[in-house]
């Protein structure tokens, strides 16, 4: 008997042939590990100030130099990776859950429920995302739910980005559910008398997981980008906490005199976004060979 491969195995084989995507995947894993172990790997605490050592150029003691207050830029970049990656990944996961649930309910029931639910989505889409992001963030931050400033900043950012991010996912999932629910195996499940929640969970969502995962990989870099955007214009995370956007803002402020400050966060953002985009492209091609461009 011939051994047949599952859809996922086939996709994995296809993905492995794509060198750029595989390389990006390893790079993403590397950045994630660095971010996860930032506390162990960084030579100094992110907020330790070395008096009289402001604006040092890269040297053997401070690998990336020091910033305007004499803090080690290498440590700050590592901690920045932690914050940026955490925001990117957590937010994408939350958006995925909300978007999938919302979209599948809307698509499954159709009719009036669908049109009301989609009208809400249309309203959110009609607000430029950065404006919505700023509004939700300011709103959420004003409640000051946590003691620690870091937790406050992180949750504010995650909530705001999730509010914006789930909308696209909901739309795509709804479209997919609308297509899939007409297929015969769903009809069979319905005839067997399963409850809608069961059919959605066991029959529909596993079959539309491909596009959802692809969207998820593209949401992560766009969240990282939005986070750095907001932090750059001063509405995101605040110093002494570090994210790539905060560091880019520091670098921009000191640009006239000490241009080397902009490069570590800049290169980090660029390479990470590049890796996520390449990996996402590869994943899309691997999961859906028909869509290959």
């Amino acid at each position: 008997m011939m051994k047949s491969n599952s859809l996922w195995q086939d996709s994995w084989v296809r993905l492995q042939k794509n060198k750029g995507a595989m390389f990006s995947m390893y790079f993403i894993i590397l950045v994630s590990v660095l971010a996860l172990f930032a506390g162990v790997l960084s030579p100094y605490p992110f907020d330790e100030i070395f008096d009289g050592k402001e604006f040092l150029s890269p040297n053997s003691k401070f690998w990336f130099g020091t910033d305007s207050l004499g803090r080690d830029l290498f440590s700050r970049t590592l901690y920045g990776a932690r914050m940026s990656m955490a925001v990117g990944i957590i937010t994408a996961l939350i958006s995925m859950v909300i978007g999938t649930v919302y979209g599948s309910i809307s698509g499954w029931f159709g009719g009036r429920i669908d049109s009301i639910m989609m009208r809400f989505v249309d309203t959110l889409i009609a607000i430029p995302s950065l404006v919505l992001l700023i509004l939700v963030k300011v709103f959420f931050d004003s409640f000051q739910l946590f003691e620690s400033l870091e937790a406050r900043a992180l949750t504010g950012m995650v909530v705001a980005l999730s509010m914006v991010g789930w909308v696209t996912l909901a739309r795509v999932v709804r479209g997919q559910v609308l297509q899939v629910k007409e297929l015969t195996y769903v009809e069979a499940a319905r005839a067997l008398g399963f409850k809608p929640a069961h059919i959605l969970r066991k029959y529909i969502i596993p079959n539309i997981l491909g596009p959802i995962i692809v969207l998820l990989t593209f949401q992560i870099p766009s969240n990282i980008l939005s986070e750095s955007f907001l932090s750059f214009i001063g509405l995101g995370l605040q110093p002494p906490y570090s994210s790539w956007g905060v560091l880019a803002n520091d670098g921009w402020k000191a640009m006239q005199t000490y241009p080397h400050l902009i490069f570590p966060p800049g290169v980090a953002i660029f390479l990470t976004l590049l890796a996520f985009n390449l990996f996402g492209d590869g994943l899309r091609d691997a999961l859906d060979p028909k869509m290959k461009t």
Partner: protein
Amino acid sequence: MKIEKYIPLLLLGLIVWAIGLDLFGYIIPSVLFYAIGLTFVCGLGVFIYKNSLLKYTMKRIGEAFFVIFLIMTATFLLLRTIPGGPFDEEKALPPEIKANIEKKYNLDQPLLTQYALYIGQVVRGDMGESFKYVGRSVTDIIKEALPPSLLLGFYALILAFLMGIPLGLFAAARHNTWIDNLCMGFAVSGIALPNFLVATLLVLFFSLKLQVLPAALWVTPWHYILPVIALGIRPAAFIARLTRSSVLDVIQSDYIRTAKAKGLSARKVLWKHVLKNSLLPVLTFSGPLAAGIMSGSFVIEFIFAIPGLGPHLISSVSNRDYPLILGLTLLYSIMLIFANLIVDLLYTFFDPRIKLS
């Protein structure tokens, strides 16, 4: 006679006139802005009428009003439930003065009354008075800040199309060669580059190192170059990728084979037959593109200290300047909604197979 044929020409003429004035350092008179707007609306009206899209358009406009109303309500409630008012300064005001100020802006009224008063104002075309810029109405602030933002966005859009489409076409025509890889390498990098980094690097190189271009402000055309490039490069990269994949689709179709078979030169096939048919996805992308350029312009205006809408939005949020935040949110939403509507309408022109209903 066929008036509708001359309206696009007139519109083009007016736009070229305005750009000419701007590039030669003259201020574009507001009459010209109004004229362009009016011509555009007239042209659109004739187009809608001739293609019997009137019903569809009315429906969409009705929906748009509903959505705008929802956005207005939600934003209003969101802002008013935030703890901490606009007049809670570090230095506490004497209670009588604070009460007086709050009375002036109706902040002492119940929430619903405030809301009713605000809606009444907006219906009369008045967005209220800014809390921070005392004595200046939101409408005035927007009127003053809109032209630089519009120009920046417009030039960035033009740059994005002029760079993106040829790049994508070129890459597709040389599919799977080093030229293709180079173009797509550029495009993927462009997508991964946040515009504040592009802006910073451009300023670093051209203003601080070479000292050939100004690092900030929005005065002469020389000042336009860096912000427009910084804002346009990401959309250009998106368009390049989109154009390439769409051209690759079209190239495989039967009518292109026919065109080649009847002996047309490769260049003619590419520019006449392929390009025209592969621009539809690019058109579809114009809605999100407009939104992206709008959001991007906040940061670019902030970096280059351009007196546009972006810095106002950022400062109004930290100042809790409710009327200004509301006004700007409404303005941005209206622009986005109508950009999408126009894209949908134009769709029927470029692809007559599509029927809107």
